[in-house]
């Protein structure tokens, strides 16, 4: 138990302290001492307070009017209706909010993942645009091919004859020759014919019933081995029996000398 070090003068002033007669400095000294936890002084003051309050019990009892009770209730009700506004501390902006270590790591990982995803999406977008461009080109090519096919189809009529060209040298190579006997024009469509080697060209031949071989012209295939040849029947041709395509030296030959790549019977 702690020793009481309060002066005798102040101890004798406890009654004056309770009656509010002491100077502020004396009140402060007593309250400072009580704050140290002196149990004996606390008990002394509590007992003296009870003694003093007992003096109040000696007064003659008088009843207040009922108005006092009603006024108290009204005042409390009024206060309950108008509650004081509670101060709301504004939330700190995100950049002032303290983040613990785990939070910082999690935030860093999230940012890295976001960056990686952004890079991936940009690359994916680039590839998609490239593919779209390629597909557009393919579509354009296919449209061209359709146009050509439509031309071929449109050239097929009652007055036209179809000659199928086959190859014994290149299995995939093939050709179709449409001969408009009325107009005396030809439309020859060739596919999968290998590109002619350097210094060589393909040469078209018409072979008549008289075994006469007449040159129809020189041509090269495109990268896909295809070519479309619209042409008129050579004047010399009276009756055509076969159509052939051979590989000849650049500039052509008088008669077929190279290998026959395609041949079709009329």
């Amino acid at each position, binding site marked *: 138990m702690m020793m009481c070090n309060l002066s005798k003068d102040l101890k*004798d002033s406890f*009654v*004056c302290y*309770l*009656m*509010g*007669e002491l100077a502020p400095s004396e009140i402060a000294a007593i309250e400072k001492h009580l704050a140290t936890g002196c149990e004996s002084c*606390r008990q002394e003051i*509590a*007992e*003296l*307070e*009870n*003694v*003093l*309050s*007992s*003096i*109040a*019990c*000696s*007064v*003659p*009892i*008088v*009843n*207040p*009017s009922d*108005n*006092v*009770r009603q*006024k*108290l*209730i009204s*005042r*409390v*009700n009024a206060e*309950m209706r108008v509650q004081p506004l509670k101060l709301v501390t504004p939330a700190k902006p995100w950049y002032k909010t303290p983040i613990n270590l785990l939070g910082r790591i999690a935030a860093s990982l999230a940012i890295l993942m976001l960056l990686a995803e952004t890079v991936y999406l940009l690359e994916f977008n680039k590839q998609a645009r490239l593919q779209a461009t390629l597909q557009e080109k393919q579509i354009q090519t296919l449209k061209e091919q359709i146009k050509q096919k439509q031309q071929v189809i449109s050239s097929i009529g009652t007055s036209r004859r179809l000659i199928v060209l086959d190859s014994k040298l290149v299995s995939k190579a093939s050709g179709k020759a449409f001969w408009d006997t009325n107009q005396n024009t030809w439309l020859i469509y060739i596919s999968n014919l290998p590109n002619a080697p350097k210094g060589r060209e393909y040469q078209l031949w018409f072979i008549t019933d008289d075994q006469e071989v007449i040159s129809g012209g020189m041509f090269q295939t495109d990268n896909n081995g295809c070519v479309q040849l619209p042409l008129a029947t050579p004047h010399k041709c009276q009756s055509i029996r076969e159509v052939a395509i051979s590989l000849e030296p650049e500039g052509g030959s008088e008669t077929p000398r190279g290998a026959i790549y395609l041949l079709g019977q009329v």
Partner: protein
Amino acid sequence: MEAKRALLNQQVVETTAYELVELIARQDQLALQQFYDRYNKLVFSLAMKVLNCRTEAEEVTLEVFWQVWQQAAQYKEARGSVLAWVIMITRSRAIDRRRSRERNGNTLYVFDNTSVSDLSIDVVDDPEETFYTSQRREAVINALSEMSDKQRMAIELAYFAGLSQSEIATQLQEPLGTVKTRIRSGIQILREKLKRYF
């Protein structure tokens, strides 16, 4: 406490003064009304004794219970009883009012010689507390009766009029040391007579 609050609503139990203060601290209006019903006579009577004016005593009574409503959470049981707390608030407010009034004109404290004999034990509505208070009241009155008039007057001037010991000495035309001794010994007599009530 919730169960106590529910019972309080039904008014089927007597709530202790401390429990009432706890409920008031939680803004329980019903508890405040019960607290008022229990202590209003004592508070008003004390204010009347100090102020000797019914209007002012009623104003002080209202202020006391309003203070209880607002400061119930600050009440500490270890510091003293609820009764002592309410009496301390009442005396303090009544004396402040009296001093304020006296700034405009010197009002001497009026001794009421009938106060000792004008007994009424119906101070509070709580039967247990009424019994306790009435017993203590009787003891106080007996103790005051045993004192000399000058000693009783010194204590009453200090307690009910809020005069300092120097002011009492002036009013009673006695040396300050004598007044101090009378008050100290008077309090000691009260303490001895009321010992069994604390």
